[in-house]
C-alpha cells in the first residue's frame, strides 16, 4: 500500500506540554476535549457500575451498605449510594454529554468541513477548553471533600440544607456552562462567517446544521442554568428566601428555572448526535441524506421548540392543571421533527451501496436506540400515563436510551469515523466491532428491564427496593457490566491502533466528499494547502476506490493534488 501519511502534520509539528495546553489549533483542542470527555465518561461510568452493583439485589440495608464500602461516615450523614447516583448524573451531564460532540468532534471536524483554517475565535476556543478543565476541577473538589448527594437536579430545599459539597458542584457547573456558551458562540459565528465561496446554507454538510442548531440552544439556554445555580448558591449561603419555604420562598420556582435550561440541554445532547448519524448514514450508503432540507429545518425547529416544553418534567410538582395541559400539548410538537429525521435516515439507505464499517454499526444502532428512546417519551408526555410513570424507573430507562443510546453511541461512532483523520491510523475492525456488538447488547439488557420495573411502580433513586422488582434489577446490573466490557473493548481497539505496528490510514478511507476528508490523514497544521473547491457535500461519485491507497481518491483532482477533488454540482433538495 502506498503510504500517504505526511511527514509533518498537526500532531508532530510542535511538541511538548505547552504546545498542547496553549495551542490555538482547533484539531489539538478537539483531541484534548475528546480525551477529557472520555476520561470523565470512565469516571461517571464507574459510579454507574457502583450504583448497579448496589441495585443488583434487594435488601442491602444501610448498615450493610456502610459496612460494604466503609467510608460513608466521612461523607457525612447522607447515604453513600446517594452520592454515587448524584455524581454519576452530574459528571455525565455536565462533563460528558453536553460538551461531548460539539466540543470534541465539532472542534476537530467543523472548520475542516468548511475548508477553513480554524474556528472564528481560536483564543475563545482555547478558553472554552480551559473552562472545561476548571469546571472539572471543581467537581473533583466536590468529590474529594464532602461529596454530593442532591441528585444532579439539585432540587431545593434538600440542596439548601444537605451537608455535602453543593457549592463546589454548583460552581463547577456554572463554569462549565460558560465553556458551553463560548463553544456555541464560536461554532455559530464560524458557520456564519467562514463558509467558503459556493457553500450556501443548503450546501453545508448536515453535521454543520446540527452544530448550528445546538449553538442556538447553548447560547440562549445555558445562562439560565447559571442563574439557577447562582440563586441556589446564594440561597444556601445567605438564606435569602428564594426557594426556602420557611423564609417565604418557593421550591417549585427552582424546578422551573432549572428545567428551563435542562430541557433544551437534552437537545444540546441529541442534535449533534443526529448530525453525526446523518453524516455516517450518507457516507456509508454513498448517497445524499434523503430530504436534506427537512433534516436541516427540523434541527432548527427542534432547537426552538425545546424551549417551550420544560414543564413536562413537572407534571406532578404541584404546578397548575392548566399549565400541565399546555406543556403536554407543546411536548408533542417536538415529537414530529424528531420522528421525521429517523424516517429520512432510513430512506437514505434505500438504493444505496452500504458498507458496514464500524462507524456505520454505530449509526444503525442509533436508529434502534433513538427509536426506543424517542418513542418512550410519548408515554411521559401524555398526562394520563405520566402520573403513574413520573419519577419511576420508566423515566430512567427513557433518558438513558436517548442520552446514552443516541448521544453517546453517536459520539463513539463519530470517534471511530474521524479517528483515521485524527491520528492517520486505521484500527482493527474486528476488535472494534466485537466491542460495539457487546456494548449494544449490554445497553439493551441494562435498560429494557427498567421500563418494566418502572411501570410496575419502582421509584427512582432507591438503593433498596421491594422483592417484586428483584429480577428486573438483577438483569439490568448484568447488562451494565456487559456494557462496560463492550465499551472497554471498543476503547482498546482505538488505543491499540496507536501502539506497536501502526496501520497507516489513507487521506480518505471512507469515501466521503465533505471537505474534512480533502486533506491528508493526519491533516497539516493549517488544514489545507489551498482552499478546497466546494460544491455538494454528498456527491459520492466524485471519489473512487484506489486499491493501492486502500482508500478513496478524487476522480478529477485539482492541479494533480490528490487531496483536492473537483466537485461537480450536486443535486440537492
Amino acid at each position, binding site marked *: 500500500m502506498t503510504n500517504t501519511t505526511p511527514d509533518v502534520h498537526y500532531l508532530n509539528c510542535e511538541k511538548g506540554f505547552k504546545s498542547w495546553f496553549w495551542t490555538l489549533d482547533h484539531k489539538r483542542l478537539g483531541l484534548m476535549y475528546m480525551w477529557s470527555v472520555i476520561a470523565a465518561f470512565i469516571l461517571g461510568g464507574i459510579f454507574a457500575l457502583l450504583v448497579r452493583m448496589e441495585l443488583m439485589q434487594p435488601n442491602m440495608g444501610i448498615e450493610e451498605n456502610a459496612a460494604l464500602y466503609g467510608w460513608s*461516615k466521612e461523607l457525612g450523614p*447522607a447515604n453513600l449510594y446517594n452520592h454515587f447516583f448524584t455524581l454519576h448524573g452530574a459528571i455525565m451531564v455536565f462533563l460528558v454529554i453536553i460538551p461531548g460532540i460539539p466540543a470534541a468532534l465539532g472542534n476537530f471536524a467543523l472548520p475542516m468541513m468548511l475548508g477553513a483554517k480554524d474556528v472564528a475565535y481560536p483564543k475563545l476556543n482555547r478558553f472554552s477548553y480551559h473552562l472545561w478543565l476548571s469546571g472539572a476541577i471543581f467537581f473533583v473538589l466536590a468529590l474529594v471533600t464532602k461529596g454530593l448527594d442532591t441528585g444532579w437536579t439539585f*432540587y*431545593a*430545599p*434538600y440542596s439548601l*440544607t*444537605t451537608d455535602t459539597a453543593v457549592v463546589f458542584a454548583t460552581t463547577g457547573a456554572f463554569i462549565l456552562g460558560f465553556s458551553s456558551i463560548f463553544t456555541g458562540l464560536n461554532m455559530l459565528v464560524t458557520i456564519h462567517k467562514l463558509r467558503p465561496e459556493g457553500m450556501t446554507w443548503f450546501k453545508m454538510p448536515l453535521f454543520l446544521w446540527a452544530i448550528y442548531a445546538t449553538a442556538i440552544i447553548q447560547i440562549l439556554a445555558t445562562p439560565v442554568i447559571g442563574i439557577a445555580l447562582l440563586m441556589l448558591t446564594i440561597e444556601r449561603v445567605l438564606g435569602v428566601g428564594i426557594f426556602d*419555604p420557611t423564609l417565604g420562598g418557593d*421550591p417549585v420556582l427552582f424546578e422551573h428555572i432549572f428545567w428551563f435550561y435542562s430541557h433544551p440541554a437534552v437537545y444540546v445532547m441529541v442534535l449533534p448526535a443526529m448530525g453525526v448519524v446523518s453524516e455516517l448514514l450518507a457516507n456509508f450508503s454513498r*448517497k*445524499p441524506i*434523503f*430530504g*436534506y432540507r*427537512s433534516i436541516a429545518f427540523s434541527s432548527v425547529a427542534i432547537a426552538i421548540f425545546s424551549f417551550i416544553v420544560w414543564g413536562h418534567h413537572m407534571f*406532578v*410538582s*404541584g404546578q397548575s*392543571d392548566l399549565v400541565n*395541559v399546555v406543556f*403536554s*400539548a407543546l411536548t*408533542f410538537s417536538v*415529537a414530529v421533527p424528531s*420522528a*421525521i429525521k429517523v*424516517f429520512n435516515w*432510513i430512506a437514505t*439507505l*434505500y*438504493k*444505496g*451501496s*452500504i458498507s458496514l464499517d464500524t462507524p456505520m454499526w454505530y449509526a444503525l444502532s442509533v*436508529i*434502534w436506540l433513538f*427509536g426506543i428512546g424517542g*418513542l418512550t417519551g*410519548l*408515554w411521559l*408526555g*401524555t*398526562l*394520563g400515563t*405520566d*402520573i*403513574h410513570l413520573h*419519577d419511576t424507573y420508566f423515566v430512567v430507562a427513557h433518558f438513558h436510551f436517548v442520552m446514552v443510546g443516541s448521544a453517546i453511541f453517536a459520539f463513539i461512532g463519530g470517534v471511530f469515523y474521524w479517528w483515521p483523520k485524527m491520528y492517520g491510523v486505521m484500527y482493527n475492525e474486528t476488535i472494534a466491532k466485537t466491542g460495539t456488538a457487546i456494548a449494544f447488547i449490554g445497553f439493551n439488557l441494562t435498560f429494557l428491564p427498567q421500563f*418494566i420495573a418502572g*411501570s*410496575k*411502580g419502582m421509584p*427512582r*433513586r*432507591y438503593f*433498596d427496593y421491594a422483592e*417484586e422488582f428483584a429480577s428486573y434489577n438483577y438483569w439490568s446490573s448484568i447488562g451494565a457490566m456487559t456494557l462496560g466490557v463492550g465499551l472497554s473493548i471498543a476503547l482498546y481497539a482505538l488505543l491499540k491502533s496507536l501502539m506497536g505496528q501502526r496501520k497507516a490510514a489513507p487521506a480518505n478511507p471512507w469515501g466521503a466528499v465533505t471537505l474534512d476528508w480533502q486533506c491528508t490523514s493526519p491533516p497539516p497544521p493549517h488544514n489545507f494547502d489551498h482552499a478546497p473547491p466546494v460544491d455538494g457535500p454528498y456527491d*459520492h461519485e466524485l471519489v473512487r476506490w484506489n486499491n493501492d491507497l486502500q482508500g478513496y481518491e478524487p476522480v478529477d483532482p485539482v492541479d494533480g493534488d490528490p487531496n483536492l477533488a473537483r466537485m461537480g454540482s450536486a443535486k440537492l*433538495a
Partner: protein
Amino acid sequence: MINLVPHLLAFQQSSSEQTPEGSLFFPPKASNFAAESDWLYNFIFWVSAIAFALTIIATVYFVVRYRKSVSPEPQPSPSHSTKLEVIWSVIPSIFLVIMFWKGFELFVDYRKVPAGAYQIQASGVKWKWTFRYPTGAESEVLHVPMGEPVEILITSKDVLHSVFIPAFRVKQDAVPGRYTKLWFEATMPGTFPLYCTEYCGKDHSAMTTTTVVHETRGEFEEWLKGALNPYEGLTPVQSGELAYTRRGCNACHSNDGSANTAPTFQGLMGLTREFEDGSSLVADRNYILESIVNPKAKVVQGFQPVMLPNGGQDLSDDERDFLVAYINSLKAN
C-alpha cells in the same frame, strides 16, 4: 410466527388480569384510574411497537438488500419526496393528537375531585409519612374505605417528597409550604405499597408505607375508632416505645447504642453531655424535653443541627411525656 399468537394473547391478557400481584407490566388494578391508565399505556405501546417494528424491518431490509457486495454502486433514487414526507409527518401526528387528547381526558378525571370525597391529610417529613383522619386519629399507614372517593391533602414539613401508590396509579409531590392533592376510589381490598418518589435524602428508599383498603365502610370505621388512641392500654414506657417508632425518632436516634446521624438514646439519662458551644450538663428529663421541643438549643458535639422542633411531627403533650419515660428506661449496657 403462528406460535407467537398465543403468547401475544397471553401477554395482552396478563396485562389486564385482575390479580393481587398485578401483571407482567403493571401493579394490581386497585383504583378507578388503573384500568384507564393501563389502557392508555397499552394504546401508546401498540402504536409505538408497530411504528418501531416498521422502521427496524425497513432498516434491516435495506441494509441487507443494498449491501455493498450486491450493490457496488448506489442506484439513482429521489433525493427527497414532498409527498412521502407529508404522509409520514401527518399520519404520526394524528396518533400523537389522539395520545395527547386521551391523556388530557384522563388527566381531567385525575384532577377533578368528586364532591364529598373523604378527606385524609398526608404529611411527609424525612423519612416518614403521617396520615391524619377527620376524627383526629393519626397513623403511619394509610387506611381507606373501598368504593368511595378519597381525597389526600398532601404537604411536607421539610423537603420535597412525593406520594405514590402504584396500585392506584396516583402520584403527587409533597411540597413544603403548600398543599397539593390527589384523589382516588379504591376498587380492591388489600394492602398496597405507598412510596415516597421524590428524592429526599438518606432514607428516601425507606420512606415507604402501605395503603390498607377496608372492604366495607364499617370495617374502616372500626379501625378508625381504634386508631384514635393508639396508646390505649399501654404503660407510659410502652407508649413511649410506640411513639419512638410511630413518630420517626428511630430514623436518626438508635435505642441500642449503635451510631447514627443523631445521638443514641441508650444510657442517655444521667449521661454528661458535651455541646458544640463547649458547655456541658448532665442529661435529665428537662434536658430531654427541651431537646424534643427545641433541638437546636443544645447541639451535641460531633452532630449536625438538623432536627426540626418535635421532629417535624405534631407531638401531643402526652406523647412527649411518653418519650421521656421511654428514654429514661433505656439504661446503658
